[in-house]
């Protein structure tokens, strides 16, 4: 069993280290899948169904095949039933993207167009068009019940009956989904924009019935996944089929519209809640009917009552199918929805009770870490400045403060193999099959190796994002990458260090245990003047080299994090605009490996949460079944000028690695909505809270 160095001992672990790939990225030298060019490369394009519900009767590709420049045409499935606008029908590879686009227009598809439904409410009604012929639109889950709802309501001081809802959000990866595929006989090389190199390898090997080692997947850099890029998807399989058929490499990158329609989203959530609380501020009971849509076949679950203790509760959740693109995992699946719903409800109950909303949460939250975070966050935001009577505020420019909470796992697990090699010229190579989703694992690996060898992170050659070395690692999901990968790196590096010290010990004629590393040297611990530089030490290897493999060490990581956010907003009741002024994010993540990128994760979570709270929305047109805003003009994502002052507080509670990618996105929307209430007395039970809603609510409140 191994352990991480203490904060006092650590030289680079937990410090602010700029990304090893940072300069390459900002100078454009970093090669993403989009940038891959190969001799004879063809360009792929997918024909997508223009109808929300249609059975394919026939596909005639002859005209497309006859177009000069077209090299391959493949059909997804001649008998497919398409269940949303954007469902894949066929694909073309051609010598240019323009020709490929022209070619897909020449494919003649005969459809049997069916009826469709694109919103949850309509889908749930009797007689609504069925999304699937063989099942109902509503998939009800079982009823979970504990305690006695009726008894609890009977003794309640306050009760609340409300419906909360959150909208569908799409991932908005800056780099769209896509692959470049090149076959060489019965083996293929795939450049993939993926968050799971080995996941893509396994899926493609399965699909084409190839031995796994005949598929090589490379992801040197990738431009975001947020949960939507775990496998090759239909588009990756199509790219590989086209390349095989054309006997030439094919690049198939999706465009922005396809991203909105077909490669995932965060499902909606609707919660009809009856809740009861006691006079002394205990949450007594919750009676919940919840549902949501993950599209044509995706689930839409979310955890309730989330972080709070409720002894008497009843819940039934249903997934509702509609004719829209399917959900995929998205940054903390289910949790932002749950947090918005619970935090809004808790806030309402607290005001009903006439109790400080923070105190009400404290009384119902069993988590000790969050109890500490409440104190820190309240102090930093100036919680005492909040409005005591939000409904009685005057003036048209109003400020208010609100809060929200979250939890996550992120403990990582087995499944990563890694190798550390020390060459006699001093080069240190660390290799594993993980991928940098954008969170900075490449740099984290270098930090861990540098810490173990007494070097600087930039002296470590980190090789990731390639299945070829045959050192697997899991997909980057569940905030598990750092916690899964770094323990294995550490054990590999520790072994390598022990071996190197052995060589040095023989040379210096001392015991290896008497030696230590640091500042690029190997020292005798008791006599620092006796040392060898790193290069002198490694030159002892001669023609040999040190090669070690890492092992999983569960003691180096831990699961479970807590987070709290406080928001201050300013609401202009003449224009309906909400300007977040300040957000304080108190986030626990165990041992911080790289403080710079850890903070970046929190910033980005807050930004994405804020964008969801105030802007982002997939808007469907009920009459045509089309998404009205499949572009970045009308699917609005927050920009730099909209940013509040964001204060990140890393709340370190232990020295074991825990993941951090997802949890910071969870509490933001609830904190903002509650701040809006505190500012204006207007309660928004659904998001996004756009100016039209603010103006409408203000007018109604003053009618």
């Amino acid at each position, binding site marked *: 069993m191994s352990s991480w160095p203490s904060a006092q001992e650590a030289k680079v672990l937990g410090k602010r280290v700029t990304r090893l790939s940072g300069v390459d990225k900002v100078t454009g030298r970093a090669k993403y899948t989009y940038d891959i060019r190969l001799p004879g490369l063809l360009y792929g394009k997918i024909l997508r169904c223009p109808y929300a519900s249609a059975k394919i009767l026939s596909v005639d590709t002859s005209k497309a095949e006859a177009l000069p420049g077209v090299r391959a045409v493949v059909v997804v499935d001649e008998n497919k039933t398409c269940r949303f606008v954007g469902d894949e029908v066929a694909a073309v590879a051609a010598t240019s993207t323009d020709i490929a686009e022209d070619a897909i227009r020449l494919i003649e598809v005969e459809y049997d167009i069916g009826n469709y439904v694109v919103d949850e409410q309509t889908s749930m009604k009797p007689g609504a068009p069925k999304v699937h012929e063989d099942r109902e639109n509503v998939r009800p889950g079982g009823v979970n019940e504990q305690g006695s709802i009726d008894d609890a309501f009977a003794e309640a001081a306050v009760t609340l009956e409300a419906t909360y809802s959150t909208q569908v959000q799409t991932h908005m990866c800056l780099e769209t989904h896509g692959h470049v595929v090149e076959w060489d006989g019965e083996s293929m090389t795939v450049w993939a924009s993926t968050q799971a190199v080995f996941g893509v390898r396994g899926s493609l090997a399965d699909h084409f019935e190839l031995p796994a080692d005949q598929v090589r997947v490379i992801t040197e850099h990738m431009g975001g996944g947020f949960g939507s890029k775990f496998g090759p998807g239909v588009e990756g399989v199509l790219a590989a089929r086209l390349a095989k058929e054309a006997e030439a490499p094919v690049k198939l990158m999706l465009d922005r519209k396809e991203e909105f329609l077909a490669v995932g989203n965060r499902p909606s959530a609707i919660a009809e809640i009856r809740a009861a609380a006691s006079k002394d501020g205990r949450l007594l009971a919750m009676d919940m009917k919840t549902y949501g849509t993950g599209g044509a076949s995706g689930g839409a679950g979310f955890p309730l009552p989330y972080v709070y203790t409720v002894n008497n509760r009843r819940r039934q959740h249903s997934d509702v199918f509609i004719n829209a693109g399917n959900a995929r995992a998205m940054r903390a699946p289910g949790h932002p929805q749950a947090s918005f719903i619970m935090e809004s409800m808790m806030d309402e109950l607290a005001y009903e009770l006439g109790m400080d909303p923070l105190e009400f949460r404290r009384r119902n939250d069993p988590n000790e870490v969050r109890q500490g975070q409440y104190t820190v966050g309240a102090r930093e935001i100036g919680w005492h400045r909040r409005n005591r009577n939000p409904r009685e505020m005057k003036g048209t420019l109003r400020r208010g403060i609100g809060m929200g909470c979250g939890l996550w796992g992120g403990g990582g697990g087995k499944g990563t193999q890694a190798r550390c090699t020390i060459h006699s010229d001093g080069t240190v190579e660390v290799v594993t099959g993980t991928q940098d989703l954008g969170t900075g694992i490449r740099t984290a690996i270098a930090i861990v190796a540098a810490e173990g060898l007494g070097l600087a992170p930039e002296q470590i050659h980190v090789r990731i994002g390639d299945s070829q070395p045959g050192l697997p690692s899991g997909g980057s999901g569940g905030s598990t990458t750092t916690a899964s990968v770094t323990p294995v790196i550490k054990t590999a590096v520790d072994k390598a260090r022990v071996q190197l010290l052995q060589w040095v010990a023989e040379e210096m004629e001392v015991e290896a245990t008497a030696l230590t590393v640091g500042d690029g040297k190997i020292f005798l611990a008791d006599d620092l003047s006796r040392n060898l530089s790193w290069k002198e030490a490694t030159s002892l290897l001669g023609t040999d080299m040190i090669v070690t493999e890492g092992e999983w060490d569960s003691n180096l990581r831990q699961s479970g994090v807590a987070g709290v956010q406080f928001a201050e907003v300013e609401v*202009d009741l*003449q224009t*309906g605009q909400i300007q977040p002024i300040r957000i304080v994010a108190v986030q626990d993540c165990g041992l911080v490996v790289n403080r710079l990128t850890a903070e970046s994760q929190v910033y980005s979570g807050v930004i994405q949460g804020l964008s969801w709270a105030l802007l982002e929305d997939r808007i469907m047109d009920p009459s045509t079944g089309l998404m009205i805003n499949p572009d970045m003009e009308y699917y609005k994502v927050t920009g730099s000028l909209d940013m509040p002052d964001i204060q990140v507080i890393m709340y370190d509670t232990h020295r074991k690695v825990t993941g951090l990618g997802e949890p910071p996105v969870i509490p933001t929307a609830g904190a903002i909505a509650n701040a809006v209430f505190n500012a204006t007395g207007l309660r928004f039970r659904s998001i996004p809270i756009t100016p039209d809603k603010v103006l409408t609510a203000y007018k109604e409140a003053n009618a």
Partner: protein
Amino acid sequence: MKTFEYITPETIDEALELLGEGAQILAGGTDLLGEMKRGLATPKRLINLKGIQGLADIRSIPDGFLTIGSLATLSHLAEHPLVAQHYPLLIEALQRTASPQIRNIATVGGNLCQRPRCWYYRHSAFPCIRKHGEGCFAMGGQDRYHAIFGGHRCFIVHPSDLAPALMALDAEVRIAHADDSRIVPLTDFFVGPRDSLTQENILTRQEILTAIRIPVPPDNAYGTYLKVSERKATDFALASVAVSIAWLDTQVTHARVVLGGVAPVPWRVKQVEEMLIGDELSGKRIERACERAVDDATPLRHNRYKVALVKGLLRKALHAAHRSREKGEK
């Protein structure tokens, strides 16, 4: 993508000769290229105006006008010293337009001639009336960004920030034609859906917008442009207001009030201008002006909020004008 002919003439006369069926004018291209990529514009010939000498010039001429060549970029205009000196209202409008990257490319002429941003119009799968199709999908559909004034079978809003500001400054446009050129007040340049369902201004296929002229504003004039959009940059107005007001002592002698983002054309509210002239800009009068501005609003199902928004913006603008005058007195 459809292939097309691409020509860069060196004079306006040459450009005029190249006009005709299937020809379209290319200036900055920030709007046209988007239209072409979506198949909304399918020109057979693109006439690139960027090769014409002097068409991007901004200069003052002896008769007191500022003349802006239609090819001047929005950045160039925003940075021009004469604009800073006489027309701060324009700078406010330009700073709220799109993003710095777009402003570096987009031209003043192109901005005035841009096509609507209605999401049904821009979406290639909706064959709306403005694309020679049938009906308006916003009617009975998702209409929250649409017009509360001047709609008729089509409920687009004019997306420009610059146009209301220029209109509040009594700008005129110069239009070149092979036979004769003409100068038209900007108020007469835009065309609403009652007059045309497929074009938004008076330019014929034989004409090119070559310049915009703005007179020197009256003495003691104050101008401001206020805009509300859902995000601060790269977003079109939910509503905007351009106001230009001048005083003699405390009495308003000149008033222009033009709304953006609420009607198919920049929406000048003359009834408000008239009631402001000849009196003090008191709080009470401002309230009445705000009510008056939305008198003839006819909101759709989901855009009634724009009525409150117009009132809120106008109230802010008029109070700012009032404060500025009081400050000037001291």
